[in-house]
């Protein structure tokens, strides 16, 4: 049910963004924002879902939730990487630079991306089991605290890093633009849900196969 829904939403979003929404004379590459911001928001949603599952791992000792947390964070990191890429493309198209330290969202995502890449390094360095589940869950919860703290830090850093903020962080949106934005956001979230359930199903099948192998040997 999810995959066809995702396809439909995505197709709708693309057609709205490319054919329906009025063009912004000032900012020709603005269409990228219709992808960039929904992808960013979806990434936050992924990390939030991963943190919720992490809480269940620790609180309820529900180790099924460990896989769910991992998959959510995995997806979040992929969407996070896409956020950085789309943001960079927009910066290049609009300002001629591949990176803008003055863009708060981009810098925040860079910090979070580093943080969640470390999550994978942590996970791959521990044998599967309760210890890995616990350490991953604790780290995922640290991410939840780090996100607003980093955002605040980045805002404060603007005082001495780049005193003049010369970019807008997002266009003002009129009605039709907002509608297209919402469709795009729905599409991205459904895409996450689709990939999440597919990856999760794959991991569960893997686990079942290993259990069978263990039982047979």
């Amino acid at each position, binding site marked *: 049910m999810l995959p066809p829904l995702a396809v439909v939403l995505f197709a709708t979003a693309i057609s709205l963004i490319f054919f329906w929404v009025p063009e912004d004379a000032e900012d020709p590459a603005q269409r990228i924002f219709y992808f960039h911001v929904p992808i960013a928001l979806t990434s936050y949603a992924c990390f939030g879902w991963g943190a919720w599952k992490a809480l269940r791992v*620790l609180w309820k000792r529900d180790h099924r939730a460990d896989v769910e947390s991992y998959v959510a964070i995995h997806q979040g990191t992929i969407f996070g990487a896409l956020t950085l890429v789309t943001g960079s493309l927009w910066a290049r198209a609009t300002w001629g630079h591949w990176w803008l330290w003055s863009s708060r969202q981009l810098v925040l995502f860079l910090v979070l991306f580093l*943080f969640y890449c*470390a999550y994978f*390094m*942590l996970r791959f360095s521990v044998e599967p089991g309760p210890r890995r589940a616990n*350490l991953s869950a*604790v780290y995922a*919860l640290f991410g939840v605290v*780090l996100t607003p703290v980093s955002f605040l830090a980045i805002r*404060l850093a603007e005082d001495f890093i780049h005193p003049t903020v010369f970019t807008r962080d997002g266009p003002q949106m009129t009605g039709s633009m907002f509608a297209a934005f919402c469709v795009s956001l729905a599409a991205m979230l459904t895409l996450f849900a689709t990939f999440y359930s597919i990856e999760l199903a794959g991991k569960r099948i893997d686990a079942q196969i290993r259990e069978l192998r263990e039982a047979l040997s």
Partner: protein
Amino acid sequence: MRYFTDVATLARKDLLLEVRARDTLPAMLLFVVAALVVFHFALPSEAGDVAGLGLLWVAIVFTALLGLSRAWVAEREQGVQDGLVLSPADRSAIWLGKALSSLAFLLLAEAIALPAFWIFFTGLDAATIAGVLLADIGICAVGAFVAAMSTATRARELLLPVLFLPLAIPLVVGGVGASVVDGPGRYLAFLALYDALFATICWASFEYVVTE
């Protein structure tokens, strides 16, 4: 009150171990002074005092990392960590004791580093020192916690900088801001906020790092 007695017992034990082994603190001292000399050569002559202050924070973070990478070694060696976890002491007290002893080492290293910086580069005002003290708390709280996590992995000390640096970024922002900007109050308040938030989450979740 027993909680704080346990924390003090554990922190004192770490200080005693360092007095015996005498390896961590001398290394930190030598490292931080050497780093400052490297920074002198790394800065072009036009770079002002402000650049130097930024590098002070780099020196502090990496000196702390050096010390933190050794923080849990003694516990790992003879499985002593299990002995501590078995005891009636609260598991979070184990973390807090370690954070406090790490803080003591960092402060001792800075007692040499800050005057050295003063001599080599530029003077330090009260706001900078306050920033250093507040940031030290955050560095040691989060650092001791993350060091315990990395000790539990195969990669051990290799993982520590990877886990620690993203978490340290806000501290660097707070510290540099306090040193450089005219109204340091906001940055000092931010550092205090970081310390409060992260100390809380460390305190609440250390149990899960040492049990399985």
